[in-house]
């Protein structure tokens, strides 16, 4: 108990790091790997929930732009993941793969020293598949979609034990998009022969509520290295053409962050700022 109070006091008394000026020459690259649980349902394949593992790779770039007096940042996110899950009776498996890309623009505020709040939007797309080991003429499901999302982020920099740490929370939620889906009982054989029937569906939070969140802690190690670790929650859902789908995962993530500053035409690695 004492130990917890001591940690709490230290965190509360931690001084915000000295604000550093982020300009359009600063950029951050990160690569993190994640592992966690997967909870999958696709009623085109089976009415049963499948649970298992998901492994994720997330590549991110983040930089300030010259827009709005250098208050708008630009972020790109590449996410790839593979999953393996089983039904509750352990008689069948699902294997999935997914890749997604998001380009995000955030307006930045710094209400107090060390705290940066960001809000904006994103455009993105994703593609993937889910294969069921026992399916007959419905063995797999394709995923293909484009969407526009709302995004918020908060970054807090603090100095603790003489080290500048970065805490970050980000949440993205698609609010409009299109996705591919077979009809309720339509076979891919039929689609393959060119018979389409409402296979491009409009999506919104009412029929495809999805939410991507991550909470990370950046810890500088040595002169240039920054370790990033945290938690990622990825909820993808849809209910179109009477086919229900959810793919929810909670992952522990760990990776490295690199900070660069553009000097002339060259990028130079710096101790830089944590965005």
């Amino acid at each position, binding site marked *: 108990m004492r130990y917890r109070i001591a940690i709490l006091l230290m965190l509360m008394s931690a001084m915000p790091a000295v604000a550093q000026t982020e300009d359009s020459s600063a950029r951050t690259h990160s690569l993190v790997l994640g592992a966690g649980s997967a909870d999958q*349902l696709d*009623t085109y394949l*089976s*009415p*049963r*929930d499948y649970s298992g593992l998901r492994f994720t790779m997330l590549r991110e770039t983040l930089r300030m732009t010259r827009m709005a007096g250098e208050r708008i940042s630009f972020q790109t996110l590449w996410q790839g993941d593979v999953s393996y899950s089983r*039904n*509750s*009776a*352990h*008689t*069948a498996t699902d294997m999935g793969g997914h890749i997604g890309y998001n380009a995000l623009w955030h307006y930045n505020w710094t209400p107090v020293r060390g705290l940066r709040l960001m809000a904006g939007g994103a455009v993105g797309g994703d593609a993937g598949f889910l294969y069921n080991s*026992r*399916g*007959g*003429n*419905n063995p797999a499901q394709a995923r293909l979609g484009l969407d526009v999302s709302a995004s918020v982020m908060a970054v807090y920099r603090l100095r603790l034990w003489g080290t500048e740490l970065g805490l970050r929370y980000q949440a993205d939620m698609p609010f409009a998009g299109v996705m591919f889906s077979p*009809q*309720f*009982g*339509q*076979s891919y*054989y*039929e689609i393959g022969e060119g*018979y389409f*029937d*409402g296979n491009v569906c409009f999506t919104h*939070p009412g029929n495809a*509520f999805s939410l991507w969140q991550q909470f990370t802690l950046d810890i500088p190690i040595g002169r240039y290295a920054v370790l990033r670790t945290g938690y990622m929650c990825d909820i993808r*859902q*849809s*209910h179109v*053409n*009477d086919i*229900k*789908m*959810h793919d929810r995962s909670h992952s522990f993530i760990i990776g490295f962050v690199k900070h660069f500053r553009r000097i002339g035409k060259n990028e130079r690695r710096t101790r830089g700022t944590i965005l």
Partner: protein
Amino acid sequence: MKNRIMARKLLITIFAGLMMSACVDEEQFGNTAQGNIEALWRIIDEHYCFLDYKGEVFGLDWNEVHGRYATMAGAPLSHEQLREVLCSMLAELRDGHVNLYTAGDVGRYWAWKEDYPANLNDEIRDSYLGTDYRIAAGLRYRILRDNVGYISYTSFSSPIGEGNIAEALHYLRLCSGLIIDVRGNGGGQLDYEQRLASHFTNERIHVGYRSHKTGRGHSDFSVPVAEYLEPSTTVRWQKPVIVLTNRQCYSATNTFVRDMRCCPGVRTLGDNTGGGSGMPFTSELPNGWLVRFSACPQYDRKGQHIEFGIAPDIPCVMTDEDVAKGRDTLIELAVEILKSR
């Protein structure tokens, strides 16, 4: 202040409500006898494509079936008893495409062939092929007496390519007619049946329709889409053809017979086909057992169901007398017809 607290509570309630309703989930039945019976009934109720049609043909009432079988879940059921109950419920559908796969057995309804004479004796049929017949992938063929060509194709699961068919037809090109024997062929890949049938038409022909379910209701179907048979770009047969059929012609073979009947110069001889015009999908129960069921119906070119088979142009049955003599009545009649042409 009070208003602000109220507004905050309201916002929290709306947000919580949105989050709760936003979850996309499917009802998960428990792994009990009742849960498995309910799950199976629901799968068929929402996905099976012939509930309305079979209601018209033999009075199938799936809600009434639920009433009868749900009462059985009241008593404790052993593993084997549960399997029997579920298989019995599926048998109400009278569909060879409906199966229950367990680790130790495959629940099935095969009355569509077992309740009828086979009109096929493998030993006698093989005696017509002899030992020096030719094999092109899944096709076995040779020239019979009176210069009649004969091809036997016993499974549309056996792959055949354009080259295989072209080689076989080229070999038989001097024959006066051709017998294609698909008796005992329980189906397989639709691609193979189309590939074979495409060698018997010179033009694109309308052979039927297909549709699929668009929702969970019994009558939720897409507008039927016309299906066409495209002519092969290689060898195309121009002489009379007789397709031999029996009750064991099922699924893709049933579709093959449907397609061939639309081709010029083709007649069918034998017994009704077994049927099976619903492309099967699979699903599963809480205990992990696999269920197969008809999901996407096909129709003939008049838009009529072919789920219960297709009648032959020339009805013919194997006679005991011929069997005793080692003669195949259907092949003999087909040879006589083609010879006379």
